[in-house]
């Protein structure tokens, strides 16, 4: 973090909840008294395109964009998408990655290849990588949509404010608008927090 500014890049594909997760981080940072900017490049996100959401907060934020090499944290909702954005991460940065693989039609059609092991590629770049199957955790908790909260839980210990603050703001949000989902999201957050410790190594593991 430079000049007290935290740069978080949240990436994935349309429909995965990338923007919702980024919004959550932005709102929580705001509640902690930071100046915040959040911007998206979602060129046709609804049509299965790449989505990247930039969240920047600190004492005073000017540019909303995170330049290549400037992200402190990378939250990847899909394995190859995390790899795509690796150049945006600082050498000292942390990547938190869902191991889900979603090959697009052009890969399925044989025009391009899906990287064999994107997690290993990330780890080989020398950054700190944590990877786990957030979808499986969500299934265990009974709702695939929990992936969002699980990923936020996973990154929560790498933020400049306590993990509990993020958890409270997520759970309170649900309590206000969808009270039935508040408890399960609290569980999802904790499950993510636990899973976020999983450290990927450069060994080509079965990611």
């Amino acid at each position: 973090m430079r000049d007290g500014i935290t740069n978080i890049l949240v990436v994935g594909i349309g429909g995965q909840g990338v923007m919702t997760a980024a919004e959550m981080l932005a709102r929580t940072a705001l509640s902690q008294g930071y100046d915040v900017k959040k911007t998206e490049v979602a060129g046709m996100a609804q049509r299965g395109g790449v989505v990247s959401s930039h969240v920047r907060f600190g004492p005073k934020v000017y540019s909303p964009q995170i330049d290549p090499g400037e992200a402190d944290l990378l939250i990847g909702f899909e394995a190859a998408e995390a790899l795509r954005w690796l150049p945006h991460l600082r050498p000292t940065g942390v990547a938190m990655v869902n191991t889900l693989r979603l090959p697009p039609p052009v890969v399925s059609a044989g025009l391009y290849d899906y990287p064999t092991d994107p997690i290993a590629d990330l780890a080989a770049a020398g950054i700190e990588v944590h990877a786990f199957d957030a979808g499986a955790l969500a299934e265990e908790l009974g709702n695939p949509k929990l992936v969002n909260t699980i990923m936020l839980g996973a990154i929560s210990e790498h933020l400049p404010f306590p993990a509990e603050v993020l958890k409270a703001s997520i759970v309170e949000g649900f309590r206000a608008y969808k009270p039935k989902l508040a408890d399960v999201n609290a569980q999802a957050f904790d499950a993510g927090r636990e899973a976020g410790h999983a450290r990927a190594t450069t060994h080509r593991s079965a990611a």
Partner: protein
Amino acid sequence: MSAVVQAKAESRHLLSGNEAVARAAWEAGVRVAAAYPGTPATEILENIALYPDIYSEWSVNEKVAVEVAIGASLAGSRALAAMKHVGMNVASDAFMTQSLAGVVGGLVIVVADDVGLSSSQNEQDSRYWGRFGHMPILEPADSQEAYEMVKRAFDLSEQYEVPVVVRMTTRVCHVKAMVEFDGERIEHRAAGFQKNPQRWVMTPANAKPRLPLMHKRDRKLRELSETSDLNVVFPGGDRRIGFVTAGPAFMHVRETFPNAPVLKLGFSCPPPLEKIRAFAGQVDTLVVVEETELLLETEIRAAGIAVRGKDILPRFGELAPSVLRPAIKPLLGEPWEVPKRSQTSVFPRPPTMCASCPHLGPYFALSHIRNLNIIGDIGCYTLGAGHPWNALDTCTCMGASLSMAHGMDKGRGESDEKKHIVAVIGDSTFLHMGMQGLLNMIYNRGNVTVLLLDNRSVGMTGGQENPGTGEDLHGLPAPRVDFAKLVEGLGVRPERIRMVDPYELPTIVKLVREETRMEEPSVIITNRPCSLTDRFERLQPYAVIDDQCTGCGNCIDLGCPAIFVARRETVTAKSGKSKELVFARIDANTCTGCHMCVETCAPEAIVQPQPQNRVIRIQPHA
């Protein structure tokens, strides 16, 4: 109702630029707001629609939206029109003359430039319109400024009786940042239309005397710009370079060179040239950082002020810190090396049509018929140019398909002799600007086969309503245009108007074949809703029975993103030729059960399994 709509003065909110514009319009007492959707401006009107005090509508195109706003202004009401950059081209006929006549109630045009060209057909710079149309331009750099400047724009518009342009870019529209409200709605009484033909009837005799008045107004606006508190100097200790900049580029400059003096232009047209001259005198080198064209730079240089700009900076795209650093550092004698970073190469993820999109059927047909020139238009169906259909040959601007197709028919070249000419257009685009092309083609006895893809939605921009959907901006029932009657009224013979279910692949292939062979214009109209709207009904997903799939790959050609290649096999046929088999798999989470692909599968391997436990799906709308 949303929290922002009810929020009191002195509250703080995390808002996008578009949301901030809506709140400002409400506070400014706007009574009428009109727009046609377009990224990145669409949410301006969607948010204004949340404020019951404002009459708001989706107009059929940007020209109509501006004219609606002009009418309201002449009645004395404050009015706003919003659009994306290319909308200004369509609207320009209206504002170019109204600017001469002037306005009564404050009239503000909010335009959003797609700097970086992420979702448009070009990257044009709306700041030219201010010069061309003699209209002042305010340029916010973030949400807070968008909020403040929209309110200022209304006062300015009324004081100088001129339409005011607020120029936003994607990095204002879609960036969320803190906004502090400093007021609530102030009603502005509308006195009613005051008849005054000399003023409002722009015949040559009436328009001519307005010209000197307009130039007088320009002079006054120039003086105002010189003293405006929207044009501010941010002092800096390092005077080797001083920057003149506006909009989000200001944020990038501040971020990259925090110690350099900056003259930030909020009131950027007409530019405060004397203020700039004075500023230039205080720094060693003056650099203009402007998105996107070299406009201020030309004006500053013409005023005899030495300036650098597009000789070192790119002439297109965003001027983000990563662009500024390598361009400017050498001027400071500080060479900048792009830091070495890990490079990755990951497959592209081009946007694609949705599962069960009603456009898939027509493109399946178009990709299977030879000898067609397929003249396209703008909408989700423009994606038909891509994989796997490769069945769209042109896309220029909204409504162009019909008229370009007609021109191509009349101007057939040698290789076109045996070709059939097809135009593909969506419902919203047809109503925006396409109808005129059809009328023109009929009148001039052209011969084009038109595919009017009516998905009852403005799909591309997120599923807005239009006169063909039966609902208005507020989701209330509205009169619905009858496309068959409409095209018949324009002169298409009833026999040549064919309604078709786009999911019935054999029928649509047959119809397109038949109609392209006709020696007269025909219109084929599809009738299934966009899969992302409430009008679409999701059914139980289909599946491929693995041992019944022969690997013909036919269903893959449909391009439905729920259908994947399960595996490939190369086999040798009896003739000795080797052939690749492609076996399919359907992703149950993505499939909507539309049944379309079933028609492509001769061995009947695509079936709907017995209803199972309810499937929870990822929602396509973020």
